[in-house]
């Protein structure tokens, strides 16, 4: 029989009495904007570029947000419109029973302790307004029925908290009703965007993408010369000159990757990996300087904007007359391809069902989207023994794999990257079970939150991920965090530098590029970062 707990002593009981007056209820506690927690407001030119409403200079730190006069009508009409259009939105407003299963699953809540970061409460911020204006109970009984007036303070609260959610959907994994709280954040952003409340970090990439095809607004010659510079480095490492083609009509495959792979660290090393692999295979593919971005910050703006920006990939595939599309290591591009594309336009009829020209594998899973993930493509090559690999070149790395939210929860890619890593390297260690695969913790910087001014927010949101990395670092000596998402490659190095500085970050195809034995290559002494390979330090010096 278990031991009965001892009753507390009188002095212990007295100590436990809380003399503080109760805090105000969340509805009555206006949001306080704290530094490091929010992104700058969008410059008007970005809104003008894509025809979004209310372009003006504004700052979230100001009392006056310069909202349109009829802002309330705009928001309520916007809600009504979306409740009619999107069945999920209506359902998610109605069916939550506030069981709390999601409450402690959000990385922002775990890292910050702010109750309004509990997904259930983040959703209540909007549900309370929904009840007030769209339900009989809420109209009649007001606060008793969990309803509240829509005020400017509520708009500010929405904005503050809907930009403290990365739409990662970890909470939805635990919801017994299958409520996708990310969709509520998506609606929150759509509605606040009707008032011109875009962030600069999202507004810029959206405008640039619309105008030039990629987030930074890189022009064709810049993209081409960046890739050629990478080819220079590849030549230095392997002795092999790669000559990729751009905008080539009649190529079999169009390759699209996030633009971060074209100019950022460590993304460029991943890109070098693609270039080397495709060259070695003799793949008939082309780059596009128009569809030069897999990322789509329109997805963090509105459904319409996401649709508008996404189409360029398929328009370019049509223009070039390719048979199918191969996609790089990107996060939300895949969520859009996998979950939105067919709703928007239906399966593209001008492309063929992807078939690997090397192995003959038909990618049945991509039958409707006609777009294959590069890890599916490479894993298939390895499975069929079509590439020669020397995993010892990655022997200095002890690798763990971070499942990116969009590719894991958004499309179920779990095995392919792991399969590749285990063939191109010899030291692989998993993070704990409740932090990977569908339960993966977000990097804390997704959905357009990877700006500089909200660094504290990002470090909080990324802490649960970093904490699991630290565990495998301490237990197994892990020193490399591999992933298949460009935002991860941009944001995780910063996260690691703060929490676990001993761990570096790479894309899976950087590891492939290192291990790939290319026909006619010279003796490899350097990795793709131009650093000596294990055991080659002296040879470097001799050269």
């Amino acid at each position: 029989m278990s031991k009965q707990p001892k009753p507390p002593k009188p002095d212990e009981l007295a100590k436990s009495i809380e003399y503080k007056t109760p805090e105000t209820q969340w509805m009555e506690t206006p949001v306080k904007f704290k530094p490091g927690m929010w992104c700058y407001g969008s410059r008007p030119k970005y809104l003008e570029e894509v025809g979004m409403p209310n372009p003006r200079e504004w700052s979230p730190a100001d009392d006056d947000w310069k909202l349109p006069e009829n802002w309330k009508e705009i928001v309520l009409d916007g809600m009504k419109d979306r409740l009619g259009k999107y069945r999920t939105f209506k359902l998610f407003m109605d069916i939550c029973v506030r069981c709390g299963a999601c409450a402690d699953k959000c990385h922002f809540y775990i890292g910050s302790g702010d109750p309004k970061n509990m997904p259930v409460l983040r959703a209540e911020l909007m549900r309370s307004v929904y009840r007030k204006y769209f339900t009989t109970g809420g109209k009649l009984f007001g606060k008793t029925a969990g309803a509240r007036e829509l005020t400017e303070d509520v708009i500010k609260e929405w904005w503050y908290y809907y930009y403290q959610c990365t739409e990662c959907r970890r909470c939805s994994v635990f919801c017994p009703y299958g409520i996708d709280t990310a969709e509520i954040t998506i609606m929150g952003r759509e509605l606040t965007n009707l008032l011109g409340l875009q962030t600069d970090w999202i507004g810029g990439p959206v405008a640039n993408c619309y105008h030039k095809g990629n987030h930074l607004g890189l022009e064709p010659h810049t993209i081409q010369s960046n890739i050629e510079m990478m080819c220079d480095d590849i030549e230095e490492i392997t002795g092999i000159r790669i000559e990729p083609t751009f905008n080539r009509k009649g190529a079999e495959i169009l390759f699209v990757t996030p633009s971060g792979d074209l100019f950022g660290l460590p993304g460029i090393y991943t890109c070098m990996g693609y270039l080397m692999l495709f060259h070695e295979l003799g793949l008939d593919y082309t780059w596009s300087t128009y569809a030069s971005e897999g990322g789509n910050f329109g997805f963090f703006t509105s459904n319409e904007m996401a649709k508008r920006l996404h189409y360029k990939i398929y328009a370019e595939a049509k223009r070039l007359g390719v048979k199918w599309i191969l996609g790089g290591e990107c996060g939300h591009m895949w969520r859009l391809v996998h979950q939105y594309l067919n709703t928007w336009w239906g399966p593209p009829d001008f492309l063929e069902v992807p078939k690997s020209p090397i192995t003959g594998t038909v990618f049945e899973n991509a039958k409707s989207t006609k777009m294959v993930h590069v890890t599916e493509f490479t894993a298939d090559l390895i499975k069929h023994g079509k590439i020669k690999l020397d995993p010892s070149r990655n022997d200095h790395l002890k690798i763990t794999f971070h499942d990116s939210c969009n590719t894991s929860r958004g499309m179920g890619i779990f095995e392919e990257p792991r399969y590749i890593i285990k063939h191109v390297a010899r030291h692989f260690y998993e993070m704990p079970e409740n932090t990977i695969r569908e339960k993966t913790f977000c990097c804390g910087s997704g959905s357009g939150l990877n700006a500089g001014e909200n660094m504290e927010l990002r470090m909080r949101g990324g802490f649960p991920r970093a904490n699991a990395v630290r565990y495998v670092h301490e237990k197994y000596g892990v020193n490399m965090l591999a992933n298949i998402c460009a935002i991860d490659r941009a944001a995780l190095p910063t996260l690691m530098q703060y929490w676990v500085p001993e761990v570096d970050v790479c894309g899976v195809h950087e590891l492939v590029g290192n291990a790939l034995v290319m026909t006619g290559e010279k003796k490899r002494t350097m990795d793709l970062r131009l650093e000596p390979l294990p055991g080659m330090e002296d040879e470097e010096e001799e050269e």
Partner: protein
Amino acid sequence: MGIREQLKENREKILSRWFESILKTYPAETVRFLKKTKDQFHNPVGQTIKEGIEGILFELTGEGEIEKITPFLDRIIRIRAIQDFTPSEAVAFIFQLKGIIREEIDLDRIGSEELLGLDKKIDELALKTFDIYMGCREKLYELKATELRNWTYKLLERANLLKEFEENFKSK
């Protein structure tokens, strides 16, 4: 019985009160989660604080070497430096230890020299917390700058701007 023995004897009570007092700096709705959730991956904030204060007290009851205590302090402060706290709120927990110890041990059974010695040690830790806190905040600013460089690395390289940038921000 000396102060070390008393600290060891009352370890659980001291730790429990210290933990409670740190948890009180978080919103009421969150305290329960931080306290009750034992999984270190599900509740890294609560568990890090718990393990951190255990480590600090363990070392204090031993040799009290600052170098050994610093990693525990670092883990707690690294979290609080990026949460909703002012600098003083972020580091106040180390000062609370003095009061808790005084209430939990039998002061009549130790010499004032011993107590002074412990206070001095905690003061040393307090000074260390300032260093760690500032280090964390400086790191954040450094990260903002280096991140911008990394994101546009190839473009800076193309424009021959990298050398200048590298000189300004040596570390990665």
